[in-house]
Structures are given as structure tokens and as C-alpha cells.
């Protein structure tokens, strides 16, 4: 791709895309001191590194970017070069205007992304510090295709460009979610949690306490547990409780209340309700069934 710089207001190509504020591909040949400090209140900035190595900071956090990396900077986030230096290399960027609907930024009007999805996207992008940069394999092709569509203005280009812009947001968010919920590192943490729960089953566990064992925030923790185990943390705990209770019902002569309390239910009533809902049996029916076999 050749170098280019399209700007809202001056470039005809962007006329029909009021949300595209700037779209450019530039080779940067000289060190530029002090020119790179931005804090845009209503812009999402997407940078794609074509060649070279860039050392930047977003919200005081350092990032080293290599070719193929994409950096997405949210409104109001501060982007600077380390030592305020913009390094040498080629990069492509896109500035997209977000509008505010009831104090929440959105690109729903033109992207086709639903409001609930939009909220989740902002939430995920905002709450995963240190994750706003990544290799995004197909971003280069996407930027290129957007450029080609803008220049050629063939039939349907309006729809296509907006779809590709939406695609960029979706891909980026999905990548982050995948990173956040990578099932490969999580099994060990989950095993530790499982053991802790079993070790003290009668304790009235809260999600906060469980998340602390995993050394995570509750939201991330809940999402990860759900992804890995198929259950919310509390439902997984109920699983273990009921399994233990079944063992005791089958084996010892302890009364149902004792079993309920030792496996962490508040009361025999709470135990009976949970047990019946899941198995179709009350605890005493279940015990009777087993004795009769």
C-alpha cells in the first residue's frame, strides 16, 4: 500500500462516513520529539504496525509494538511515545468517532452491533489493562480492504466499509476474551480452588472469597470458571455439596440435618429444596431408595 492520509472535512472519500475522522498509512522517517501526546475524548484510535518497532505508553503502561500488532486506544486514554518519542517505521491508523448515548459511548448507529453487545465490548476493553495490544493476524488485510473500498467507491462500498470497521472491533474484543479465558493456564488454578472448597465445605463461601483463591477479580473469575467448568462458581460449589451429601446419605447413619450442615447448606430445609430440585428426590426418599436396592 502507498502512503495516504484521509481526513474528515477535507477528504471527499470520508464524506459519507462521518464517524471516520482520520484514516492514514504513513512511513515515519525521522524521530519526532514531543509531537505525540493525545487524549481524545470522543475518539477510538486503532493503530496497526506495518514495519518497525514502536515503544509507546497507554495510560502510563509501556507497550512495545512489532509488525502485525494492533493497538486500540479508548476515548480519554492517554497515548504517548515513551520519552515522548514516536519511533521510526510504518504504521496505519484509524480514528473513529464514538457518540454518547446516556453517558455510554457507542458505535451502534452504523456498525449494527447491538447495544448490549456494545456495552460488553466497552466493558471488556476497559477492564483488561495491559491487553489493549496484540497480534491481530487479519488486521492488515482488513485495513487494506477498507482503503480499497474507500478509493474505488463501488456499489455497496458504504455497507462493506462499515461492516469491516465493526469486524475490527469484534475481532479485537474476541481476541481479548480468548486471552482472558485461555483454558490452557486455568486448570491448575481451578484444581486449587476445587481443593480449597472441598477442604472446607461447610464454610459459607462467597464468590469474593473464591476469586481471592484464584487471585482474580470477581468478574473475570466468574467468567473464567464458567468457561472452563460450565458452571458459575456458586453452582459448581452446589455440585460438590450435593455429591458429598449423596455419599453421606448412602453411607453413614448421620441424620439429614447433620449431613446438610456438614456439606454447607444453611439448614435441612435448604438442603432438601436444593436436592429435590436437582435430583427429583428429597434426601430421605433418596436414602430410602438406596436402602431398598
Amino acid at each position: 500500500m502507498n502512503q495516504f492520509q484521509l481526513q474528515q472535512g477535507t477528504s471527499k472519500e470520508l464524506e459519507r462516513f462521518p464517524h471516520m475522522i482520520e484514516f492514514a498509512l504513513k512511513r515515519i522517517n525521522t524521530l519526532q520529539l514531543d509531537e505525540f501526546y493525545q487524549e481524545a475524548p470522543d475518539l477510538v484510535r486503532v493503530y496497526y504496525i506495518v514495519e518497525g518497532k514502536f515503544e509507546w505508553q497507554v495510560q502510563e503502561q509501556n507497550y512495545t509494538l512489532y509488525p502485525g500488532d494492533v493497538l486500540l486506544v479508548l476515548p480519554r486514554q492517554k497515548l504517548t511515545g515513551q520519552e515522548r518519542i514516536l519511533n521510526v517505521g510504518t504504521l496505519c491508523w484509524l480514528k473513529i468517532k464514538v457518540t454518547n448515548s446516556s453517558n455510554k459511548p457507542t458505535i451502534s448507529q452504523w456498525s449494527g452491533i447491538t447495544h448490549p453487545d456494545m456495552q460488553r465490548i466497552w466493558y471488556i476493553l476497559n477492564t483488561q489493562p495491559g491487553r489493549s495490544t496484540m497480534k491481530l493476524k487479519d488486521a492488515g488485510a482488513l485495513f487494506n480492504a477498507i482503503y480499497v473500498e474507500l478509493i474505488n467507491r463501488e456499489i455497496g462500498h458504504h455497507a462493506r466499509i462499515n461492516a469491516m470497521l465493526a469486524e475490527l472491533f469484534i475481532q479485537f474484543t474476541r481476541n481479548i476474551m480468548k486471552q482472558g479465558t485461555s483454558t490452557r493456564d486455568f486448570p491448575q488454578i481451578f484444581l486449587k480452588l476445587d481443593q480449597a472448597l472441598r477442604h472446607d465445605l461447610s464454610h459459607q463461601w462467597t464468590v469474593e472469597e473464591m476469586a481471592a483463591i484464584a487471585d482474580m477479580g470477581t468478574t473475570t473469575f466468574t467468567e473464567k470458571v464458567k468457561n472452563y467448568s460450565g458452571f458459575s462458581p456458586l453452582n459448581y460449589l452446589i455440585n460438590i455439596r450435593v455429591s458429598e451429601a449423596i455419599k453421606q446419605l448412602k453411607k453413614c447413619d448421620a441424620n439429614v440435618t447433620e449431613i446438610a450442615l456438614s456439606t454447607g447448606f444453611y439448614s435441612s430445609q435448604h438442603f432438601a429444596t436444593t436436592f429435590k430440585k436437582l435430583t427429583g428426590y428429597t434426601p430421605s426418599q433418596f436414602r430410602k431408595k438406596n436402602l431398598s436396592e
Partner: protein
Amino acid sequence: MNCIITIEMGTNAVRIFAFKIDGTLIDSAKGHYPTFHDEQDYSEQDPEQMFITMLYVLKNLLIEKIHPQKYRVDSICFSASMHSLLAVDKKGVPIGNAITWADNRGKKEATDLKNSALGKEIYSLTGTPIHPMSPLVKIAWIRTNLPDRFKKTWKFLSIKSYIIQQLTGEYLVDQSIASATGLFNIHDLQWEQKSLDYAGINIDKLPALCEVFFSDLKLRKEYLNTLKLDTGTRIIVGSSDGCMATLGAGIWDGDKATITIEDSGALRVVSDKPIHDEKQRLFNYVLTNQHIISGGPTNNGGLIFDWFNSQFGDSKTGFNMDLAAEGLIEEATEVPAGSNGALFLPYLLGERAPIWDANARGVYFGLNIRHERKHLVRATLEGIIYGIYNIGQSMKAHRNIESLSLNGSFATIPFCAQMISDIFNKPVGIISERNSVGKGAFLLSAINMGIYKDIDEAAKSVTLPVDYKPNKQNHKIYNQYFKVFERLSVKLADEFEAIAALQQENAS
């Protein structure tokens, strides 16, 4: 509208799928259960938790997804991982946990039996390699080491038998699961007396045998109520995960093989006769008396690449296994086939087929001063696939394989798929169905409903593209290095044993 539910009791989780009658997926859900390793070589699971997890996931799927869409559940078909063993007492109450396929406590019993004349005979009668995974060996271990449990045991079940017993009250095992126990004669499809004698049990200690299609079962009314099912819903006993995956992959011509590489891997073929391998390297599992699935399992699949990745993968952008793996594969493409003579034996987890050597360990071999990091990356990938090819070679005497189908997350990486095609020198197709086990269970149910007339017709409904063609030049190079790989794998046996013993001794 009718629908079909399949329930897979897998190694780490239960996976439940709901299919429309035409085979399209309606929805799915999973629930994890843990594996306990209380001692070295032990691998156990809690049968009650497996049951409750299954029930919980099934209930949620039905109540939240299936019933609201007005589907009627025509049938529920089960599959489970092979080789599990669970002792229950007279009341059907588990004595201890279920012992999984990955449990190695019976190493000594297995080695002694394997080297005996009786072992050879039992292998040829049962088709299951003599190995600690085998319930035959596990029972023998319990008899010697836990005499109390052995005495109290009323029946030795598989985990699937236990689940079905809990739901219906019947003690049953299908021929597929049975054929992976080492206790089942795959020629006359009955429990094998010689195995029973070796294990020290009589036939009453085992559940009744049935075909995989068996569905003369009734859910207890409490479960009917809680699951909101009607009495017309068929409960199909089903098969093992290995057999289901093979059926779901649609491989039924004798000259085709399926390669699955996930964390571990396997190469499988299907025919109407078992393979008798003099060296006891290959398994034979029964789907029906006309459909025997033969092959070999490997311990060292994608897990080995994961290991390499987590040790040496690039971590510059906040470590992400998937991205780092992509980076490594990119590096591997910079090196020619054969890695300029850097060779890797992938046996970090010991190995099953074809060398069946629990002591085997990983080796980088042939390094010279010009090898770089990228050579080791490529050698690692090649080594994993040579391992699978080695199974293919041990099958060569018995079957003529003309083409391959791949599934599993490692085997279907495009770079690996091409490498498999080149190393085997065969055309390769990728199985697009991501859940071959569920698909297999669906097909089994569909046959039961009369949608397909038999297994062959059902298997044919799965179409297979050819995605990769072998590069002859690469094959020639790979083949030369493979010969060294093959010899090393056997030659090093003594040293494997010595180093494994030292490692165990010095383990802290």
C-alpha cells in the same frame, strides 16, 4: 419436533449435545469434574460428582433450551471414555472413586502379565493391549493391594454403567466399553473366562452385556419428573468415546484411517475383523460384531507442543498460548522438511502405541553447531507426527491405508495437516465436525430411529473432502529421518528405564 440428546462422559467433563433429527446442532452444554492424583500414578474421579454434574447439565439444557423450543426428546444416547473401573457394593454404593484410563498403578501387574504366555493369549482373545489402563489389570491390582475392597465388591463397573444404573436401576455394559476392559472376548462377544480367572473374579462380578443399540431401559420416575421427559424417550446405552469419534468421522472403508491429535492422539481403522498383532501393539474395540475399530493410542500429542510453547514460546505481548503457538509455527516454516537433521523423540509422557514403554522420555537428537532455535521448533512438530506415523507403520502389516482423515485441535493446524500428509505420503482430509463423539452418538441414535438403515449408511452421511496432498520430495526426506527415529525409539529402551528410575528416585 423431535430431537436427539447425546451425553459424553469424557475425561475432564460431561458434554451434552442436542441435535435436530436432520443432524443439525440445536444446543450444547458441558460440566467439568476434577481428577484426583492422590499418589503418583493415581488418577481417580468421584462417581457421585460425575453423576450429579451430568444430571445438572442435562437438566439445565432441557429446561432452559430444549423444552422452551417445544422439542420432544426422542432419545438420549450415552458415550464415555474407555477403561474406567468402579467397584460398588451390594447396594450399588461406590467403594472408593472411579479409576480412570490414565491411572498407572498397575504397572507391575501389567508388565508381568504382558511378558507371560497367558498375557499373549489374553491379548489375542480380548484385543486390548495389556497395560495399566486396562480394567483387567486394575482388578488384579485391587485384589493384591486392597483385599478388603476386593472382597466387598459386588460388581466392577465402568463409569458409564454406574451412570446408567443410577438413572434406570439396571447394571449394564455395552460391547464397546466391555471390549476395552481386557475381560471381553472380541471374537465370540462374551466375557472371557481366561481373563476372569486371571483377575480372580467370576462372571457375576461384571454387569450384563448388551449391544450399543440397546434401549430397553426406563428412567426412574423421579428423573422423568425432574427432567420433564415423557416415558417414550428412549435411553440408548451407546458406545465408547473412541468408537463414537470414529463413527462420527465417517471412516468405514478398510483403506482409510482416522488420525485424532488433541492433547494425546490415536490412529484408527475400521473393518469387520480384529487385527492380531504379534507384538501386541494395537487395540481392537468392538462397535458391533461387524465393525471393529483397531488402532493405537499415543500419549504425546498437542500436550507436547503446549509444553514446548510454554517453555520457549514468545511472550512479548503478554503471554498468550495461542498467539505464541502461531509464532512458533511461523518459525517452523522457515526450516526445510527434516529440520536439517534435528530429530525429536516426543515421549515426555512415556508412550503407548507402538512402543508401549511407560519409561520412554523426550530426546533431541542429531544436533550440530548449525542448528538454530527454529530447527528445534520444527523438529518438535515433526517428532510428534513421527510418533503417530510409527503407529501407522505398525499397522502396515495388517491394513493398507490409502487416505487419512484428521480431527483434533493439533492435527488440524494447517501446517501439521500438511506435514501428516507428507510424512504418511497420503492425501489428507480435515473432518469439519468439531465434535465427532457427539456426532457419532447422534448417528447411532438415528440408526435406532430408522433414519439410516445401518451403520454403514449412517457413516456414509459424513462427507470428507481432500484438503492436502503429499509432497513426494518432502516424504522422501521425512522417511529417511523417520528410520532413525524408529530405531532410536527402541534402541534407547534400557537408557529410558535407567533415567526414569533416577527421575523417580530423585523426585522431590
